[in-house]
């Protein structure tokens, strides 16, 4: 396995509206590392900076200070094109509001990252998309427009999409946040299964202590800092 951590943060800070009266420090000097293939939960009260951290990790926002190594590479100074490239090659996203493109079918949504990368959908990519949709239990609806699917189904499509280019890390922001308990259990079980099958690292933001307990590692944030970072009961042999 890779020796270098997948993610390494040193003194990472994020300040919004610097120099203005409305200045807010959201992240206050975080140190964190995440290994390849880990399955970690990120918990904490609202406003503790979880989503901001996820955005910074996802290269959607730039940190104001500190260092961020993604797969051994410093990314805070990359330009937009290089950041986009890094997102494409290394990261997958699952958001609370799944964000599928409603006009595309489930399979097309899953294949979109590949279409964007290559300019066409190769047969290999389409096969992988099919296999992933089968794996998330949606093989029978893959040619339906995504807007016709239920919330839980859409979230499962989003998970398949996040995995289609085989990223090293999937960032999930409350992936079960707007689902009922049954769907939410199902989706979470799916994340764990994909983790077991593909070996992708997952960082899952959640409010639900029940779900956090089913991750291998639980990182708790309070007020822009890491309050605790421990292996969860699920990881104990």
């Amino acid at each position, binding site marked *: 396995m890779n020796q270098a951590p997948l993610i390494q943060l040193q003194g990472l800070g994020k300040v919004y509206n610097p120099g203005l009266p409305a200045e807010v420090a959201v992240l206050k000097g975080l140190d964190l590392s995440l290994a390849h293939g880990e399955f970690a939960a990120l918990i904490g009260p609202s406003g503790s900076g979880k989503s901001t951290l996820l955005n910074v990790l996802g290269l*959607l926002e730039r940190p104001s200070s500190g260092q961020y190594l993604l797969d051994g590479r410093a990314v805070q100074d990359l330009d937009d094109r290089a950041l986009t*490239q890094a997102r494409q090659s290394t990261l997958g996203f699952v958001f609370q509001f799944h*964000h599928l*493109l409603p006009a595309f079918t489930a399979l097309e949504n899953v294949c979109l990252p590949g279409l964007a990368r*290559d300019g*066409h959908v190769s047969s290999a990519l389409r096969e992988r998309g099919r296999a992933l949709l089968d794996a998330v239990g949606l093989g029978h609806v893959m040619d339906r427009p995504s807007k016709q699917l239920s919330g839980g189904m859409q979230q499962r499509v989003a998970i398949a999409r996040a995995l289609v*280019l085989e990223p090293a890390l999937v960032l999930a922001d409350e992936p079960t946040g707007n689902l009922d308990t049954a769907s939410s259990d199902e989706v979470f079980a799916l994340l764990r299964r994909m983790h077991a099958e593909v070996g992708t690292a997952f960082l899952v933001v959640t409010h639900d202590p029940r779900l956090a307990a089913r991750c291998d590692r639980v990182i708790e944030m309070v007020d822009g800092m890491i309050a605790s970072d421990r292996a969860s009961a699920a990881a104990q042999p």
Partner: protein
Amino acid sequence: MAAAAVPGRAHWGLGFERRVALRFLLEGRFQTLLIIVGVAAGVAVVAYISALVGGLQRNTLEKTLGAQAHVVITPPDERVLPAWPAASDTQSLSDTQARAQRLRSLGNWQSYEHWLAERPGVTAVSPLVSGAALAQRGEASRSAAVMGVELARYDAIVGLRQRLVAGQFRLLPGEALVGQLLAADLGLRVGDRLVLNTGSRSDTVRLVGLLDYGIRDLNRRMVVLPLRSAQSLLDLPGGATQIDLRVADVWSARELAAGLARQLPYKVESWQETNAQLVSALNAQSISTTLIRAVVMVVVVLGIASVLVVSVVQKRREIGILRAMGVTQGQIMRVFLLQGALVGGLGAVLGNLLAVALIWAFTTFVRGADGQPLFVISLPASTAVQVSLMALVAGVLAAWAPARRAARMDPAQAIRL
């Protein structure tokens, strides 16, 4: 771009942009339809107006130039030269009476005839003698404009053959073609004789054909004779009072005339100079057309832009998620530019069809008192292509600002909303 091709499917680049742009347009079905119809209406108006004005101008030019030469060469005006150059220390008070312009021949015109015919752009050369006479029959007399021509050469200048309404198209010695109103005034029929009297000479000719110039004034005055008969009638043996030229491109006449005026000892006038008012009317028309085009183009640009601006706002989240999954700013930009181009292109196709329908309606339903179409209008392919390109450019131009806005959107913020 795409090296690994899927069997049975061609890739022409921009695969991602093409698909997403098409889906976005299909998704906003009603909006898309509205704006395409809007663009089509704009394109149709521009194409129709261009065709209409083009047809009108062609028609006007044909009518005007049907009866006159493109370039006319005449002897220079005779002027009175000052007899005594004024000495430097004296004041000269003189009153010069303008000279009467007598009818005279172009000096040495035969030597220029061939040279003129060889000028680039010149398609016909016709020397002629023209002057005034009284046309008489019995008690009746009318003033007439006598024109002596070599019939075939003159026909090449103004297309006289098509204006023959009765009799034969020929001019043997002693024969004349006469404007139909003049013939009516004198009670002449084909085969009748009339007397032409210039005051100093007179000649009797036989009417062989009636002409309708489409212009009342000419129909009332014209008498066309063989060149030699006219030369002797007007007392200009071997002379020519003017040389008419026809050119291939009517709009080049002015330039050609200016060039000839520098090289010849004669006065050279193009039809543009003799019809200055017509030319400025035509120019004013062209300017109006250009103005209408510009205004319609601005309206089309604004229409497409407003729809795309709304679409960018509606699709913030989708743009955000696309950016998160590794879609570049350039790709997002091209998605929206392509939408503009598609809307412009489809609008252009539809608009041209609409214009063809309008033109058909015009030529079918708008008729003159005689039941004939007022004039022929058609949509030349070049105009259709030009207008379509304009719509396409307008589409891309209109999409520019919204596309930039979409591309520069902060993905984190777009997703959060």
